[in-house]
């Protein structure tokens, strides 16, 4: 019976169904805590437990989905390309802002991890958690971290960023829409950006530019913070 499920078809189909339900619930509830990725993950976990399907079978049969991380990262270039006019307008502030944000993120993660006594594997898994998930997973794999932990952390960061985006601007006295957008995109990638798009057009565009830029900066800088 189980060998029937031991094909990529099972992993892909189960993931698609779970994701579809996750999106549906997200649209119904309309709250960032109803994250489609988290819902899909939870549903798959429940199905595996209830039907007594070993985790190995899902892992093996869904591993083909992971092959698409590279093309997904590559097409991020298309979204940068689409924002090129806007990027040109405020090139220096955006570049320096995302660069500073990446350094701040790496430093603060390193320090808090050390302070709380988390080990190197956990640190390697969290280093990249502010950036977009495909790049974050690549960085985690490079330093021998646990990709699952990275995905969980990027969802936490993204959701926090989404929830707190308007509050953060008030807390840190940010009124410039460009600065607000870059801040949101640098610390909470696409999940934060969906909130930035609600706040305003400039905020949204800047936030989506910051996603890819901070991803590149974090790849370049991470080796210096992980020693």
């Amino acid at each position, binding site marked *: 019976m189980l060998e029937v499920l031991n094909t990529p078809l099972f992993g892909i189909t189960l*993931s698609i169904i779970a*994701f579809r339900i996750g999106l549906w619930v997200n649209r119904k509830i309309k709250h960032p805590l109803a994250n489609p*990725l988290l819902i*899909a*993950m939870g549903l*798959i976990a429940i199905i595996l437990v209830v039907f007594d399907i070993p985790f190995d079978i*899902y*892992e093996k049969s*869904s*591993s083909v*989905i*992971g092959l698409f991380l*590279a*093309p*997904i*990262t*590559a*097409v*991020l*270039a*298309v979204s*940068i*390309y*689409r924002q090129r006019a806007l990027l040109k307008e405020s090139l*220096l*502030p*955006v570049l*320096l802002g995302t660069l*500073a944000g990446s350094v*701040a993120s790496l430093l603060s993660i390193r320090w*808090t*991890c050390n302070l709380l*006594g*988390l080990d190197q594997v*956990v640190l390697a898994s969290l280093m990249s*958690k502010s950036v977009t*998930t*495909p790049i974050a997973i690549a960085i985690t794999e*490079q330093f021998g971290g*646990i*990709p*699952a*932990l990275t*995905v*969980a*952390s990027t969802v936490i960061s993204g959701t*926090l*960023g989404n929830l*707190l985006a308007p509050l953060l*601007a008030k807390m*840190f006295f*940010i009124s*410039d829409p460009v*600065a*607000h957008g870059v*801040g949101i995109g*640098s*610390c909470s990638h696409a999940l934060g950006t969906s909130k930035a798009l609600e706040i305003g057009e400039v905020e949204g565009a800047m936030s989506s530019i910051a996603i890819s830029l901070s*991803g*590149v900066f974090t790849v370049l800088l991470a080796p210096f913070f992980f020693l």
Partner: protein
Amino acid sequence: MKILIQLGLLFGVCILGDLVSFVLPFAFPGSVISMLLMLFLLLSGLMKESTIEESANFFLKNMTFFFIPFGVGILRYAALIRSVWWQLLVVNFVSLLVCFAVSSWTVVLVTRLQKLWGGRRNA
């Protein structure tokens, strides 16, 4: 056929990225090199946006789906998560505040400096 060609081009760029990553003397993810290659191709006009538009849109719109298997992997680390869950939340929260404050204030300061210099040049 159109989509197949687009996917072929996209995967080809990814293989090229992996190749460059393999040749580089230091560790650098091939996927990010592919992204930079793609950006170069688009900006230089060697590749038109319309050449890969449909498949790019497909991946950009459905990106989250592809993270599901990585996320479900968390089941394997349930014990680890249970032992460090509050630390994870603290790290996430602290770095979110620091990263937001630093990046947004850098933008504000750089913009102000630029205006200052621009103003002087015009005066």
